[in-house]
């Protein structure tokens, strides 16, 4: 088993940590998998496009205009990606703060997922920055734009990445066999969790608050002063749906790593998450309804954008919510997974409607992302999955911690 050879190499003191890391860098497992065959050409093409972007400017690969300065890279990579990464703060809240031990076995993989999502999707921001060499300005120096929502979001991204790294660090220590470091790092978990949840609350809503000043540019069905609250509430079920979705894939791909006990627990976990999703979605749907009625927007419904809005609300919020309830009541894992996928599509729709589709919906020349923007987006996602797989195959994320951890307890 994988477990034993890692602990063996840990116990082998003659092998230095450096050599150990070097040996771990080598790929493991089959090389010609379907995922590799699809992802490698995409990543290579993406790298070429990124080089072109830095030589000839952002306009060389994107369709961005003076009226629509933020496109797919912000609207999908950053705004949607971060919503999906929300699972990490919701789960750490449930497990560490509410002490729901049932979900403990999936905390590590979710935090890892969240951490990588932040690193890559916030990293994708660098591609979209026209003057990336100045990116340190809001962090150091005297250029604090404290009245900017983006300033807040930037700082929170940075701090939250550190908090997530601390939350995940015991797994790294277990991988390296660093017993003392593991003890110290585990002691910091609760502080990191509390800090992380606070940061997440603020920047999940902050991503919505970014668009508050674009009042006249976003279609009124998607603009209200409640965008921050709507973004925050929807990040709860967006993140959990991602956990359900990603969990069911991981369970197939990394089948061998998961202990039998955790395999049996999986069903209970998915049904429990379905219940929470349904609750959060009910709150979200109710909020959307309140905003809609309060804003007196009935006349807007009978327009093409109105039908689009109805489809999002009924087909991708109300329907998956009912499916979650149904799946939970009937113990149907399939229904729950289907609902999770619908929910995720709904989140993508909602975030794109605010940031891209509904943004300057009335412009003469509307923005449609170029194929190059889409390739770069896939490059970012695929590279993240590569790193994710690399970590899962090496560190005790899905598999149980090495024996010495239990002995210490």
């Amino acid at each position, binding site marked *: 088993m994988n477990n034993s050879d890692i602990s063996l190499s840990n116990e082998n003191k003659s092998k230095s940590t450096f050599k150990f890391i070097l040996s771990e860098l080598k790929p493991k497992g089959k090389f010609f998998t379907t995922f590799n065959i699809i992802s490698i050409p995409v990543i290579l093409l993406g790298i070429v496009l990124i080089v072109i972007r*830095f*030589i*000839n*400017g*952002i*306009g*060389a690969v*994107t369709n*961005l205009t*003076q*009226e629509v*300065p*933020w496109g797919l890279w912000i609207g999908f990579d950053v705004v949607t990606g971060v919503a999906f990464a929300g699972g990490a703060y919701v789960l750490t*809240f449930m497990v560490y*703060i*509410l*002490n729901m*031990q049932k979900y403990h076995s999936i905390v590590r993989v979710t935090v890892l997922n969240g951490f990588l999502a932040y690193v890559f999707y916030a990293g994708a*921001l660098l591609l*979209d*920055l*026209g*003057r*990336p060499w*100045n*990116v340190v*300005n*809001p962090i150091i120096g005297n*250029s*604090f*734009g*404290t*009245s*900017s*929502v*983006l*300033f*807040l979001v930037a700082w929170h991204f940075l701090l939250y990445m550190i908090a997530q790294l601390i939350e995940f660090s015991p797994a790294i220590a277990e991988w390296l066999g660093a017993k003392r470091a593991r003890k110290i790092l585990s002691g910091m978990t*609760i*502080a990191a*969790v*509390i*800090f992380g*949840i*606070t940061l997440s*609350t*603020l920047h999940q*809503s*902050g991503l919505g*608050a*970014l*668009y*508050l*000043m*674009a*009042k*006249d*540019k976003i279609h009124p069905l998607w603009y209200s*002063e409640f965008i*921050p609250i709507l973004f925050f509430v929807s990040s709860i079920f967006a993140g959990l749906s991602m956990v359900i979705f990603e969990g069911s894939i991981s369970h197939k791909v990394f089948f061998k790593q998961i202990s039998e006990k955790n395999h049996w627990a999986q069903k209970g976990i998915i049904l429990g998450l379905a219940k929470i999703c349904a609750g959060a979605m009910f709150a979200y749907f109710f909020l959307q309804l309140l905003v809609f009625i309060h804003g007196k927007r009935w006349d807007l419904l009978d327009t093409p954008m109105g039908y689009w809005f109805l489809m999002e609300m009924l087909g991708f919020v109300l329907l998956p919510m009912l499916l979650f309830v149904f799946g939970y009541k009937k113990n149907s894992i399939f229904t729950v997974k289907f609902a999770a996928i619908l929910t995720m599509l709904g989140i993508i729709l909602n975030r794109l409607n605010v940031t891209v589709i509904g943004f300057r919906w009335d412009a003469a020349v509307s923005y449609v992302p170029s194929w190059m923007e889409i390739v770069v987006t896939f490059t970012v996602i695929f590279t993240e999955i590569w790193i994710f797989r690399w970590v899962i195959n090496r560190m005790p994320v899905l598999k149980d911690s090495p024996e010495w951890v239990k002995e210490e307890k």
Partner: protein
Amino acid sequence: MGINRRDFLKTAGVAGITLLALDSFGIEKSKNSDVEFYGILYDSTRCAGCQTCETLCAEKNGLPAPVGELKAGNIRKTDENHRTVLNCYKTSKGELFIKTQCMHCNEPACAAACLTQAMCKTKEGPVTWNGDKCMGCRYCMVSCPFDVPKFEYHSANPKIQKCTMCYEKIIKGGIPVCAENCPAEAIKFGTRRELIAEARKRIAEGKDTYIDEIYGEHTAGGTGFMYLSSVPFNELGLNTKLQNESYPELSKGFLFSVPSVFVLLPPLLLGIYEATKKNKNIKNEENE
């Protein structure tokens, strides 16, 4: 046992840091009363559409000469090569010209949006851009209700282009090139207070000529660039649906709630943590 010393220190530490941050997170509000911003008053009834302002602006800023024919029906827009453009509109009172450029708001959305203070409302009044600070995120473009900042998409070292009201000239006591050289005297430079007084005077003296409104006196919280016209402003392509409150006001509520969340949420979470931890201990004891 209640909260122990270490946890108390943690909580106190978080609360303390947040209180310190309270001050720095506040939005700087410009006090209109004791600041004399410079501004420009543009009188569309005087403008003859000679494009002198366009040409001189391009020359002064080292940008390409104006392009496109100035005629009714052909709407030209400012872009990364043209900081100001004239347009001609067929209105209820015949063909009229109108100049477009940065409005130099009293409380600019772009400056409130900028996370590096690259966009800056100077104390003289012009809104300027600083390339050493800007990281090219284009949030100013997303936020500006007038769509003024323009980005050089086809450059590896892109700049934000917008009218600066000739800031370098103003601080040396000069006046902007467009106002200095307008043959029709349609563009008048001065302090905002003087300009509003002048505009009121013109409206009062020419009741048949002007509509009784100054575009920019209240729009978007007041702007440095203001318009006079003989026809309703929407006939001249100006956006009359913009709100009269300043745009940074829209995100103020959110920003003000940040310190409270930072103060209240961590102790709450710590409290829940302590409470559920006790439950766990009790359960463990019962099981034993």
